[in-house]
């Protein structure tokens, strides 16, 4: 799975370059995220602006990362499209993840908070 990766003030910004995060790419997504954690990244913003479709395989990958980061680090999601956002709500994962409208908002909240 293609990811765009940027770093700003020690924050890792990951923007998946795919329209769909389903079982076809989820395990690759998961292992790429784990690689970042293993390399010491602890503050991560995932920008989902390119993603039209996510299902439980994609959700599972992100929850695993959230659990792995634990209290050591922080993770924020941003730029969820309507369909994606509604699945976070349905599964109540919107209560578990910190979700921001814009990437700037996510970054700002990590600096101030």
């Amino acid at each position, binding site marked *: 799975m293609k990811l765009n990766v940027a770093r700003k003030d020690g924050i890792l910004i990951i923007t998946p370059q795919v329209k*769909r995060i*389903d*079982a*076809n790419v989820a395990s690759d997504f998961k292992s790429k995220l784990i690689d970042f954690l293993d390399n010491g990244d602890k503050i991560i913003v995932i920008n989902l602006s390119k993603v039209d*479709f996510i*299902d*439980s*395989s994609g*959700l*599972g*990958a992100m*929850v*695993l990362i*959230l*659990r792995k980061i634990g209290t050591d680090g922080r993770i924020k999601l941003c730029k969820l499209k309507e*369909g994606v956002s509604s*699945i976070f709500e*349905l*599964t*109540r*994962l919107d*209560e*578990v993840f910190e979700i921001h409208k814009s990437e700037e908002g996510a970054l700002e909240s990590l600096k101030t908070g």
Partner: protein
Amino acid sequence: MAGESGELMEEIRLTFPRKVAYLRFATSISKQICQQIEECREDKSFASDVELCVSEACTNAIKYGRSGEMEDVISLYFQIFADKLVIKVQDKGSGFNLNNLPDPDIESLPDRGYGLYIIRSKMDDVQYTHTEEGNFLTMIKFFKGDFNV
């Protein structure tokens, strides 16, 4: 699309190898079928709900439906009725008990177990049968405006 309620009007069947790479065949045919049905086009979320559930159900069939047979395949049936769309996902695995599944416990941050919860939330009815021909997960969604059991 006219016809009495309860009357099967059209059926589309797709059979594909039990491999995750074929998941998108299933979701893309699901999108096309919903485009085809006028009743769905009026209900904006119908197609996306169905696509999501087809993705979940086929992912499970691919993950858990290992048959041990040479030809390890998944079949997907779309049955268009006057009042509803019925989707059946067939695998040849050892099956499971749909009624024993708890909803995911969000507090414990599970990284799995969301699939059937999503399916149950989005569909009007979900059934599971184990037959000689394999396991069938049957998902039923009524067109809007019709009665909703």
